[in-house]
């Protein structure tokens, strides 16, 4: 049976979408059958990054009970050109759709949780997907907590920013722990991580502060910023250090090595 991986963070701008897209693409590059979900209904972005101009059905429609999940999946395997399969389920970026999703009640959110949980049977079970990667919205809100409850593993993206560190610590204690979720921390936008001694020092400090396993450290790469979200970085720059870091992270998740 495959796995559901949610990428979440306390604050916005920590690199969740960058991680989600590239992690999903890396899984696909490893020959896996993957689907990337845009669960950030308040600020949908995957349609732009993946350059999908139009689709008949959005993920919103699936959660609203208007269609089955297969109608939502967009096959992007040909873009990667590898042996894996890469699909995406996109959130509707129209203002009307964003407004509609923000006004849902508790009963709807409960049904949405049921719909997400049923992906385990349909996509992982019947259609043999290896990974479903959920890109979530930051902080504690319904759509992201629904995603976390559904996931087998949560990648928590954070930066060195003080408010982010405190919030992330609290969230680890008061959210993921309560739901007994396996988590792996990714420290993004790390400055000065060139020497091994510096890396080791940071590694032990992070373990002390967060008390959870470290999945990876991603330095601040100007090339990633310069790409301005115009490409799937790990796909287009296969020899770049960023690609290598993502590769290691994906391998750790595949081998269940994050303990």
């Amino acid at each position, binding site marked *: 049976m495959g796995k559901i991986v949610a990428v979440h963070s306390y604050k916005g701008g920590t690199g969740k979408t960058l991680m989600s897209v590239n992690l999903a693409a890396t899984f696909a590059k490893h020959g896996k059958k993957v689907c990337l979900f845009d669960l950030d209904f308040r600020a949908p972005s995957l349609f732009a990054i993946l350059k999908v101009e139009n689709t008949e059905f959005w993920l919103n429609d699936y959660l609203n009970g208007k269609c089955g999940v297969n109608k939502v999946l967009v096959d992007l395997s040909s873009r990667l050109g590898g042996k894996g399969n890469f699909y995406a389920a996109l959130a509707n970026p129209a203002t009307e759709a964003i407004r509609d999703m923000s006004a849902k009640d*508790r*009963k709807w*959110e*409960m*049904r949405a*949780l*049921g719909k997400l*949980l*049923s992906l385990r049977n349909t996509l992982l079970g019947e259609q043999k997907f290896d990974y479903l990667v959920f890109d979530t919205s930051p902080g504690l809100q*319904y759509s992201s*907590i*629904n995603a976390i*409850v559904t996931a087998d593993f949560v990648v928590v993206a954070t930066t060195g920013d003080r408010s982010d560190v405190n919030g992330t610590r609290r969230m680890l204690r008061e*959210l993921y722990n*309560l*739901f*007994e979720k396996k988590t792996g921390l990714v420290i993004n936008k790390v400055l000065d991580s060139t020497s091994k001694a510096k890396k080791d020092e940071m590694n032990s400090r992070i373990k002390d502060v967060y008390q959870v396993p470290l999945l990876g450290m991603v330095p601040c790469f100007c090339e990633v910023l310069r790409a301005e979200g115009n490409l799937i970085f790990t796909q287009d720059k296969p020899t770049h250090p960023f690609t290598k870091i993502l590769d290691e992270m994906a391998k750790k998740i595949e081998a269940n090595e994050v303990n």
Partner: protein
Amino acid sequence: MTREEILSKKPLHVLEKIRENLERLNEKMEVMIELQKHGHKDITQPLPDTPLDVMTLLSMPDHLRKTAMTICRCGRATADEVAQQTTRARAVESAYLNQLVIMGYLKKERKGRKAYFYADRDSQG
């Protein structure tokens, strides 16, 4: 059931009926014991048909969250099936499940001798 009715049935059927009734009685006693143990503190608002959403799950006491989460994942399960997942005793899960039914978060349906618990996601409202 009158004496004539009982005598007209097969003994096995009568025994089945007795067993079913004893099981129901047992479940009710488990709930009463559980309620006493927790001093009714978990049941603040016994509302009918309360949505079991993630914020509700977050605010639940740990012992009930574990049971409720298992039902969320399985969709529909007996106390036995929940106990297998949580590795707690069946009687304990049965008590927690019935408590969640009283609180309005879960529905209970009997099929023969088995009682199934589920979160009612399909009702309107």
